[in-house]
């Protein structure tokens, strides 16, 4: 009887320790990114969506505390994924949420801690976020966010020389897309025999890959950029 009581106490204690750990880890990640008041980053965006045949786009990303983020193309016509703003880690961690420790996992060769974030606000668009944190470097490596309106977003982040600020060099952003169907006949297309045979597997997943080459951190970003 006494043995069972001690074991239960130990289990409860270790569980609460683990929960504390994950909270502590998230706090450390937050502290890291809070060193950044604003930044401007330039890079390239590769969009991979079944119906979009678009070239690499030159983009600039602007961020300003607390959670303003703007992704802009520097030239030409470009399709900017609307949910791309969710790659803002500040945004992800700024909400008031409850944390559930979901144990550990592996991303590549890195052992990561997994946490599920449940927003406390019933009106929040986010239903659930799952984050994967590298506990050694205190960096967010992956997140999955399920929203009420826009489906599920997934982020994969890789870090380089700006890891001390928690700013990624590469972001792979996956999102849900809707079917795109133009009514046949309005475009008067030139059809070739290969067009009729062309049947590809349709995917409702889109991927945008952002590669940042340079960050300007804490040098000030004009408010007008976010309008």
């Amino acid at each position, binding site marked *: 009887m006494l043995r069972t009581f001690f074991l239960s106490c130990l289990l409860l204690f270790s569980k609460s320790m683990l929960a504390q750990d994950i909270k502590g880890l998230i706090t450390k990640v937050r502290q890291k990114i809070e060193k950044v008041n604003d930044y401007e980053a330039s890079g390239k965006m590769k969009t991979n*969506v079944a119906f*979009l045949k678009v070239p*690499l786009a030159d983009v600039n990303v602007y961020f300003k505390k607390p959670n303003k983020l703007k992704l802009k193309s520097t030239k030409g016509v470009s399709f900017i994924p*609307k949910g791309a703003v969710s790659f803002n880690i500040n945004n992800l961690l700024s909400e008031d949420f409850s944390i559930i420790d979901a144990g550990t996992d592996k991303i590549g060769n890195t052992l990561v801690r997994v946490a599920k974030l449940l927003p406390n606000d019933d009106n929040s668009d986010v239903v659930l976020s799952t984050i994967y944190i590298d506990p050694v470097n205190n960096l967010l490596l992956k997140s999955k966010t399920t929203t009420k309106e826009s489906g599920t977003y997934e982020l994969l982040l890789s870090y380089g020389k700006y890891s001390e600020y928690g700013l990624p060099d590469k972001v792979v952003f996956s999102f849900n897309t809707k079917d795109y169907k133009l009514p046949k006949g309005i475009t*008067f297309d030139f059809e070739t*025999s290969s067009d*009729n045979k062309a049947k590809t597997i349709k995917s409702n997943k889109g991927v945008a890959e952002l590669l940042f080459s340079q960050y300007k951190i804490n040098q000030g970003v004009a408010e007008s950029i976010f309008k």
Partner: protein
Amino acid sequence: MWSLLQIELFKISKRPRTYLSFAAITAIVLIFQLAFKADGKSYMDLMLQNVQDNFELNKENAINGYFMCYIILNTLLVQIPILVALIAGDAISGEANMGTLRLMLTKPISRSQIILSKFIASFIYTILLLVWMAVMALFLSILIFGMDDMLIFRVKGEESQILQILKDDVIWRYFAAFGYAAIALTVIAALALLLSVFAENSIGPIITTVCIVIIFTIVSNLNVPVIDKNVKPWLFTSYLVGWKGFFYIGTNTEGQPIPGSIENWPAIRNSLFILIAHIFLLLGITIAVFRKKDILS
């Protein structure tokens, strides 16, 4: 032959209907440009549909001179053959109607030369029409809307696509497309000229040419598998839109456009061969019929 051609060109230049074609193109293009300047975003919204739920697009940049020209050319697809038929359909039948054909044939010129000179004159008129269209639809649109990357909305087989061509990669495609259009419209000129041989007033061949173009175009766009397979390849109108092939840019395995590439050059080349074959065939029949024809008017 040169003097004969000069005379034919002089005759075309003296007909009011020649300038009517240029005025019609000017009016249509200006209306389009005005409409898109006022509310081009509505058209863009229609074409983008639910893409806008997932993506933001700088529509102001997307509605540029290159895009405008493509839209205008797409819409003028049915009208331009009518304008070509207006002149080519009148070439022989107009002379017959005025009674000048018999007089003309009393001169020491072969009947083949007469047909050839009329055909070349119609071809030159077609080229001038296209040059004017390029000036109005392309260069004026660039002046009004500027230059930027070009978007192509397309249905390929069962799927719809949006292609983006970088602005440095567009202009050569227009030159190629206008070159192709010149050949395609020459088929219409050759057809109208052939029909003109059988008539004694110009209304008949002009209307018949227009009817053939409209009926064939409708059949070409029916999208019924049996017709697509068995009838469509035999209709010259199926190849009139081949100029668009220059804007279907090739893509790599990741779906990114390859600058300077064309998705299906063999299809364009084959279409060109078919159109050129039509020109020779129609012209050959015209010469053969005209050489044996009793000229009674």
